[in-house]
């Protein structure tokens, strides 16, 4: 049978009205998924204060060497820092000088590869004083596994010369 118009089918109209009536009485559903709440705040967002040159230099040293600078060491580092206008550049030179010092406490590649998640967590704690987010952990883990150039020294260098390391 072919219907000439919508009004030719009173049963259909009644069915639609019934559906509308039912939908009006339907209470709002609350869907509950089996996923934990996740804090989506950007990591390190509460770090608003920039480290002074003294703080930056002495913290970088103690984070790498596990000990504090002597006054003479600190003085020569501050002089170097103040003698060049590009602070990112001089900080980079100072950090690379630290890394070239055999006394720097940098894990070996074998130690890193033995426990990559542990290494990443330790690195975040050492330099950023916080836990890595799940995404940070996954990304760096993936990078270490798939990029043979990734060594603890390179990762430490990147952390020490990153923006977040300049803040507290």
């Amino acid at each position, binding site marked *: 049978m072919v219907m000439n118009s919508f009004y030719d089918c009173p049963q259909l109209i009644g069915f639609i009205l019934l559906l509308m009536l039912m939908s009006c009485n339907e209470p709002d559903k609350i869907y509950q998924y089996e996923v934990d709440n996740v804090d989506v705040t950007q990591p*390190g967002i509460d770090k608003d204060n*920039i480290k002074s040159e003294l703080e930056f230099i002495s913290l970088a040293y103690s984070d790498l060497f596990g000990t504090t600078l002597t006054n003479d060491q600190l003085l020569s580092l501050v002089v170097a820092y103040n003698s060049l206008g590009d602070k*990112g550049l001089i900080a980079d030179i100072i950090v*690379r000088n630290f890394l070239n010092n055999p006394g720097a406490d940098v894990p070996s590649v074998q130690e890193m590869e033995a426990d990559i998640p542990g290494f990443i967590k330790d690195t975040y704690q050492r330099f950023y004083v916080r836990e890595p987010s799940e995404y940070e952990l996954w990304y760096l883990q993936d990078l270490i596994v798939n990029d043979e150039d990734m*060594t603890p020294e390179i990762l430490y260098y990147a952390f020490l010369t990153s*923006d977040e390391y300049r803040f507290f």
Partner: protein
Amino acid sequence: MKRRSFLKKSSLLAASTFAAPYLLPTGRLFARTASRRVNHVVFCLYAGGVRNMESVHQNEGNLMPALFAGAKSSNPGLDSMPASPFMQPLEKMGTLFKEFRYKEGPTGHFNGHTVAVTGRYTDTGLNLKQNPEYPTIFEYYLKHNSPSQTAQNAWWISNSLGPYPALNYSRHPSYGPMFGANHITPTMLISPDVYPAIGKPKQFQFHEEEAVSKVRDFLNKNFDKQAGQVGLGINNEAADAKRIADFIQNLIDRGLSGEFLNPLGVPLTLANNDIFTTLFAEEVIKEFKPELLTVNMTDVDVCHQDFSEYCNNLQKADYAVAHLWDTIQQTPGMANDTVMIIVPEHGRNLQPNSIRDIYGRFAVDHTGDATSREIFCMVIGPDNLIQQDKVVGTPSNPVGESIDVVPTIATLLGFDADIPSGLLPGRFLHEAFV
């Protein structure tokens, strides 16, 4: 058919490229057409407080024979310096403003330097720990010069630390560190004391540098602030920073090898900080051929306690300036295309203080009397641009002020018309130009 389509697209792209206006960092669509008069300017602050009585008036004989004509001083206590590289004094190669004036504000060293690089007189409220209130010549250059240049073309080379590093950019809201010059205090950076701090940096291979960048980029993208935007000074692009790092390393290595033990041909026992600062300024010139370089000397300030050593350091700075000019003339790209402006930041008092040196001469301070505002200015350069062997100004008719140097540099490099009106009260020193 494909070729025809390619040609059509290429033509459209080319047409749009030529038709599209260029947006300059200044916010202007096109650069103004002010033409350059020269491609390099070296601004030499013969600073530390130089009194006209000992410089242009030669009351102690000619203590500055490389700059001025006149019989060399025979004062006691003068070290024997090498002869100037030039047969004639520099004043013959340009225009001497014999009675220049530092008209207003305190005659303090940092005030004087600030006036020199900003073209604005300062008041007594100058904070030594802050960058200047008004833009520096470096910022005017890096913001308004067309085509835009990087900070590799703008250098501030300071003789000492203290407040001086802060003069490479201002805290003016329309300028600031993104238009700042590369600053270096070379005698502090390239020194045995600092060597343990920076002398042996870890060298990464190219592929390792790439790995570092990959990690650092990731870390920086996950953080909401940029260190370079919160008062950490200027920030060179990666390639420029690498070049500067290599340059510094090269200087350190050469210093260790003993290459700088006879700076500018001066025996080490006679070399002072001004000599070494000039040596490193010359290295910057040879490596970067900057369009704008400012260097200062301050050793004459020993005059607060030792007048004879002040005279001695005047002649050392004099030799250093001539050597600097000689290096410029030996540097391809800068020779015959550079103007050098030499000016003290302020003078010294007429009356001495009570401190006598070993020759019984009294020391002199600078506390703002009329004499401490009397200085000279020398502008030297190619004879097709600069009036040669010309002297301007008399004590009764002084010509030129400290605040005139910045507008003069801006005009020489051709960006004066782009500087917003009201920022620079000084004028172009037209008397020096052909």
